[in-house]
Structures are given as C-alpha cells and as structure tokens.
C-alpha cells in the first residue's frame, strides 16, 4: 500500500490527491491481476498523489455494503468526487482510464 497525504486543494480541474479502493476476494488470479494492473495504471497515468486501499472481502465481507459492491474486482474512486466505480480485473487500460475520468472518449 502506498500512502501519501497532501493538503487537499479545492481545484477540481487538477486533482491533488486520489483515494482509490479496490475490492477483491482472496488471492485469486483475478484479484492479483487487478491489484497489479491498478498499480501500473496509477504509476503511469496519475500525476497527482494517490492512495490505494485494497479490501479483501473474504476477510471483511461486511465492508462490501458500504460501497454497494456486488461485483469483484471493483475499483472505487472516492476522491476526487464524484464517486466512480470500475469493475473487472482492470486489464483494459483504456476503459479504466475512462472510468476514472483520466481519459475521455471522443
């Protein structure tokens, strides 16, 4: 887990800190793949500081209710608002970027 804290600025155009939460179940290949993909994408495409939290629903199943998780893996972007969700093992980078609004479809 990479954790960095920065002062939050009110500038929504240039997000300062990203809070991402990845829900997985256990150590399945898909889970591991998702985690790896997420790290890569963040490294490559995220300028700002980011914080990734991985939640294993096998350990804490009740945490799924908070974010209304029904599919796995699911990536939830809590910050910057609005909340966005991306489901899947995140192997399709373009789709992930669109989902996180780092890239816009033309």
């Amino acid at each position, binding site marked *: 887990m990479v954790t960095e804290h920065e002062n939050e600025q009110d500038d929504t155009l240039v997000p300062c800190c990203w809070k991402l939460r990845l829900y997985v179940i256990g150590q399945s290949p*898909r889970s591991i793949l998702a985690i790896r993909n997420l790290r890569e994408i963040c490294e490559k495409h995220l300028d700002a500081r980011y914080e990734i939290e991985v939640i294993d629903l096998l350990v804490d199943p009740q945490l799924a209710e908070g974010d209304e998780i029904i599919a*796995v893996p699911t990536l939830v972007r809590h910050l910057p608002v609005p*909340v966005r*969700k*991306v489901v899947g093992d995140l192997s*399709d980078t373009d789709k992930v970027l669109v989902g996180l609004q780092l890239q816009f479809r033309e």
Partner: protein
Amino acid sequence: MNMASSKYLLQKCPTGITGFDRIADGGLPAGRSTLICGSAGSGKSLFGIEFLAHGIESFQEPGVFVSFEERAEDIIANVASIGLALDEMVAAGQLKLLSIDIETHSLHEAGEYDLEPLFIRISAAIKAVRARRIVLDAVENLFSAFEDQAILRAEFKRLLSWIKTQGLTAVITTEKGDEQHLTRRGVEEYLADCVVLLDLRVTDQVATRMLRITKYRGSGHGADEYPFLIDDTGIVCMPINQYSLDYPVSNRIFSSGISKLDQMLGGGIYYGSTLLVSGGSGSGKSTVAGQFVDSACARGEKTLYLALEESPGQIMRNLRSLNIDLQQWVDRGVLSFVANRPSVYGLEMQMAVLMRQVRLFEPALVVIDPITALHIDSSSLTVKRMLQRMIDQLKSRGITMLFTTLTWSSEEIGETTPSSISSLMDAWIQLRSMESSGERSRGLYVIKSRGARNSNQIREFLITSGGIFLKDVMLNGAGDVVTGSQRYLMQVRQAQAHKDRQATEEQQRLELESRHQTMQARVAALMAEFEAEKQSLERKWQLESLQSSENEMLIHQVSERRSTGVSDGD
C-alpha cells in the same frame, strides 16, 4: 392434471396467494426458480412479497427478499396497507430484506469480473434466517447495470443453480421486455422452470389485471389468462375456468313466495338453480324480485342483492309502497346490498367484488338486478363469459340465483335477451304487458323451467298492496287470453249466459212437467175407455153365454119331453 407416476411428482411450494395455487395446481415448483414477468405496476413485487409473507405465516418457511430497486423501508411501507407486517417478520428473524443499490451511471467495465460479493451478501442473509424461500425483485436493474451480457448470463445461471443446491424455492421478478423475449435482455426466461406473466391493461378507461402461466416445466397448469385484482387483502386470483360442471344438486324447492308462480314453474325452482326474470320497462321485474327476496328472507335465507341501476334505498322505497319491507331484513342482517354502477369497475373487478362479498356473507340467494346494466361497457361475449364463470362458482356453493333483465319490445324481439344468456338459466319467466282494446295489463309466463313441466299459459297478474297476485287464465272463444276489462266483460257475459241458460232450463222443465201431466191424463182417459169397453164386452159375453146355456137347456128339455112322449098340447 395428475402426473402418471407419483414417483416423479413435482413437489409444489404453495404461495398462499388467493386463487393462484389452484391455477398452478398446487403452487410453484419447489426448490426451483419461477420467473414473474410484467410491466410496471403489474403486481410483480407484491407477488414476491406475498409469496414470502405467506411462507412465513402459513407454511413456516423463512425467506429473503432481495430488491434491486427499492429500499427496505419503502418495501415495508408499501405492503402495510394490505395487512402484512413485514417489520415484525424481520424483527422475529423470519424475513430478511436486502436492498441492493445499483448505480448504473457510474459503473464501468474494464476486464473480467464476477458477482461473488452479491452471492456472499445473499448467502449471509439466507443463513441468518435459515431461509427456504427467496425473491429476487426487479433483476432487470442488475442486468442493465452491466454491459457484458455473457458474464451476466453466466453469473445469473450460477446464482440460480447455487440457490437450487441450497434447496430454496426462488421467485424472480422482472419487467416485461419486447414481445419476443419477454424480458429486456431475454435471458431469464430460459433459466426459470416456471414463467408467470402479469399484465395490467387499460381498455375503455378501465384497468384490468390478467395473469397467465406461460411455462411450467414438469407440471400441468391452467393455461388460460386469469383475471386478478389487488384489494386490501393483496392479490386475489380468480381461477374461474377451473370449475367443472360437477356440482352438487338439490331436490329442494326454493319457493318464489308468489302464489301460483311455483305451480307455473312446475313446482318451483330448485335450490342452486338460476332464474331469469325478463320484461320491458315497468313490467314489474324488480317487484317480482323484491317479493322473491322478501319471502326468502322471511324463511331466514341470507340474500345478497347486487343493485346495478337503482340504489338500494330506491328499491326498498318502491317496494314499501306495496307493503314489502326489505329494510327489516337489512336490519336483521339477513339481506345485504351491493350497489355499484358497473362502469365504476371493470367487469372482472365487478365480479371479484361480488365473489368476495359472497365469501364473506355466505348467502343462500344472490340477486343481480339488472344484468342488462352490465352490457354498457363490455361486449356481449365478455358478459356471457363472466356470467358463466360466476354462475359456476355460485352453483358449486349451492347458491340460488335470480337475475332480472330488460327486454326491449315484448312482441317482436321474441325470446332473445341481449347476450343470449338464456342458455345459462335453468328457469326463465317473461313479464309482458298485453294490449287489447286500448288497455294494458300485465301478463307473466314461463318460457322455460328445467327439470319440471311448466305451464305454458300467459297469466295475468296484478301488483297490489299485498304483493303480486296471479289470476287464473281466461280464454275467449278464439282461444286467446283475455285480460283487463275484456276479462271483466267476459266474466260478466259468462255470468249472464249462465243465468240465461238456467232460466231456459227452468222453463223447459216446466213444459216437460205439464206435458207429462197432460200425457198422464190422456193415458188415464184411454185406460178408462178401455176398461169400460172391456167390461161391457165381458158382460156381453156373460149374457151371451147365459143365453146360450138357457137355450141349450130349453132344447134339452124339449127333446126330453119329446122323447118321453109327453106332449104338451093334446
């Protein structure tokens, strides 16, 4: 509808929903999944909730309700009005309400995934209450949330299979899609063992609800469309076509209360039979019905009166002027009125309301006055079908029925009523007004009376302050029935003729008497004459014989003298 071998009998899971289990021949397939499909507002969610609620209350089967559309509080509030206390069931640990919020707009797919978290949540809920029944409500929301249908189909199948291995009976509700596929994604119907369609249609501004089982693997089922309604007890299905013609028959006579009418009907109508009273406006139908009801109530027979045109107050007021008091029976709880204009409800609803009243009130007699009022909004065929169903239902309960109907013009139309429902009737009385010599009088005759020989004569009747009074039939010389003042005239003439006859008879008798006497006198005279002749002849013979004997003696004497030589003159 029985399977050949009991070994392979599909277990049924009764829903407890009024009328449905009969249509589905016992209930839904136990341990399998049923799809309830319908448009918005058709009652799908309610079906699911009732399935669980009755499961808990009547069959001791806890359940889980998973909604992809509504929140738990809303679900509880929605059904509170039909008397289901879901919050109590939740508190008692018998019911679990899971509401899964799916935000479609902020969900993106990037890669492979599965729905395991959903499984986990549902599984936890099932374990918490040890559920035997489960409902997945509004799954179309789940399906529309994800783009990848292949994954979804696979996962859904996995979910249903998993539920099946747990031995739960599942009900899945979804919105109806286009005609071809039933559902928007066309997925679920291939995964369910039983599919039920709910439809809410609006025709001529009246809403009607219909239910149809389109598929039921491994079981027979009623394949027709069945109307149902949602009232304050929940969903009420009417499996009306299920009734066979095999109902108990009675030999007891249900008296009409009108003197001589029972006679005309060949003794009277039987309990559990149907009587139709038809006639033109003002012919006295409601009066006949009123007297019928009055006498039934007086015998203690509970009566349910469906008034479709006049208000109960009006009906009772009109009858009071003839000294028929129905209010007393209402007060005593023997008579109950149901008054609705048919246009307020659809035809099916109307019938459902009536049947509900029948269930609650348990009458021995049901009156519908008039059934012609039902024709206004519906086609004749619909009315006939509805009546047939209702009659079947009532007959199977042994309830006697009386219907009144308006026939337009007495002579020309003949014996056909608007929807030719006469074939549904066991007995039929026609009231007619008869015109002759500028007068109208009331006549009544029996068109048919099943199971009894009936009089085929037209009888005049009067509506008096003592009720309906049937007079004896009177025919004139040509064989026509006479009524009214013609009748009176004829009666007077007849009396006169009788008197004349008597007078003539008297006179002739006197004549005969006198002739007799004359004859007797003559006979006496002849006899006397004869006697006189006889006597004189007899005297003559006497004299002659005397003379001849004297002569003989003289001759003898002379001959003797001669022979002795004695002579007289020497």
